[in-house]
């Protein structure tokens, strides 16, 4: 169902102010250039859901004031330290956060993928995470005896957004081992993908390629954005730009520095 959009901006049209937006973890194919385009557009009040963690993407959107809320099991720059805008927003009490744990996010997306209202998960009993999640419910496992188990409501985002190695002209997208991207698309009403390149031919026609392909049936728009995950990595394609991430960590440590970063690397930068 997908169309190959002529510009990244047109591909992103379905991501409206106030929508619930699902994005993958930092090393699974994050649509960073698309994220910068959304910030340039001045997007507002996004309910961001990270499957299951985030790094630069969430931090940028937080710092740029684009989020209404965030659901994640962690935000961190990894070896480059804490995520500075996330940390600042949390300690100043300005970000509404739904703290989760990784498998809970995976399970809640799978619930939506399966069209079921909730998914049970082991663990979590006695964790303070549950105190802040009135949307999670405990029941006594009907197949056990005095066996509390948490039920997680399905997460059904309006839009899923990620970056992948390639798509064909029918909008089939090769995701490889990053199967959670498929689940994210299945769980979301719409899916928008940026890709490194267009694959000539039909990704579904070759059984070997088809095994790693998200069918275009689930995809609403595709834009070609070479190095679209930069400065984050694209698995098997390019590594993270550590120098740039270190520079981000330095600049974003202060509100002024972050504004300078936005000006330099988001507003003055356009997709190739």
């Amino acid at each position, binding site marked *: 169902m997908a169309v190959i959009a002529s510009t990244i901006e047109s591909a992103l049209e379905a991501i409206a102010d106030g929508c619930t937006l699902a994005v993958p973890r930092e090393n699974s194919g994050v649509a960073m250039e698309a994220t910068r385009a959304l910030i340039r557009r001045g997007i507002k009040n996004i309910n961001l859901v990270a499957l299951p963690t985030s790094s630069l993407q969430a931090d940028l959107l937080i710092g740029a004031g684009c989020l209404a809320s965030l659901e994640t099991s962690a935000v961190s720059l990894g070896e480059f330290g804490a995520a500075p805008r996330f940390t600042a927003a949390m300690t100043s009490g300005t970000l509404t956060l739904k703290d*989760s744990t990784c*498998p*809970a996010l*995976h399970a809640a997306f*799978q619930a939506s993928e399966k069209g079921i209202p909730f998914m049970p998960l082991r663990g979590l009993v*006695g964790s303070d995470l549950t105190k802040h999640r009135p949307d999670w419910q405990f029941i006594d496992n009907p197949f056990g005896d005095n*066996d509390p188990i948490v039920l997680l409501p399905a997460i059904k985002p309006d839009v899923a957004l990620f970056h992948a190695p390639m798509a064909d002209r029918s909008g089939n997208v090769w995701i490889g081992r*990053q*199967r*959670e991207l498929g689940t994210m698309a299945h769980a979301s009403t719409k899916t928008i993908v940026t890709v490194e390149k267009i694959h000539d031919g039909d990704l579904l026609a070759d059984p070997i390629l088809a095994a790693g392909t998200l069918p275009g049936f689930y995809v609403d728009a595709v834009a070609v954005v070479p190095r679209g995950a930069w400065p984050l990595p694209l698995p098997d394609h390019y590594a993270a730009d550590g120098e740039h991430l270190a520079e981000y960590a330095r600049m974003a440590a202060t509100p002024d520095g972050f504004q300078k970063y936005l000006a330099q690397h988001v507003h003055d930068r356009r997709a190739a």
Partner: protein
Amino acid sequence: MTAAQPEFRPEELLSSVIAELIGDVRHVAVGNASPIPATAALLARERGKGRPYVSLLQSRKHNFFTDGGRELFDCAGQGRIDVFFLSGGEIDGEGNVNLVSIGEHDHPKVRFPGSFGSGYLYYVVPKVILFRTEHSRRTLVSKVSFISAPGTSEPNVYRHGGPIALVTNRCVFSFDKAKKRFALASVHPGHSVEEVVEHTGFEFDRAAQVPFTSAPDADALRLMRETVAPELAEIYPQFAQSVFGVKIVA
């Protein structure tokens, strides 16, 4: 320690003691940004001639996962991960870990990145080794401010997993699930019981005589330096260089 004892770095000591804690198991998984646990797991694999199976989540080469980000957790839920490593912004004397915040949850004084998978893996992985190099009253506290994952659970709670030990830059604690309490198992060479007491914010058991942590033997050092270090360089180039002198190839 005798004169024949080879010299070693602190990271080598920690890796060697963690390799011992891993023991004879089928599968060790190591999360992101954990170079010392990764060294330990690969050392255990070398000494076990291929057993345990080691999954380094940060590596493309050293993990087999092909079913997306959920597979690690599904695999653990199936009982197929025997050892995992967790850390904490705070760890308390009952083995509770805090990866979330200090102070009010919605307006904290200190915010950590988040719980990651701890709220699940701590319950389902039989041997969780807590690892925190910074051993201070700031990190090892009497009671964590927020429980990302509790050290123990009531008997009716489904739980096959939990902490077996806590390794720091000063010592090794073992964990007694029944007593919900750590015991000082050994103190690293160059450190003392008094120092551990001084810098630990929680109460713990200790015998009258606490041994020193066993130093890595010559075989372990050789394996780490010659076999493990080059493998590590893929994902921890800085670490492999600074600890083991592996040259970084661009």
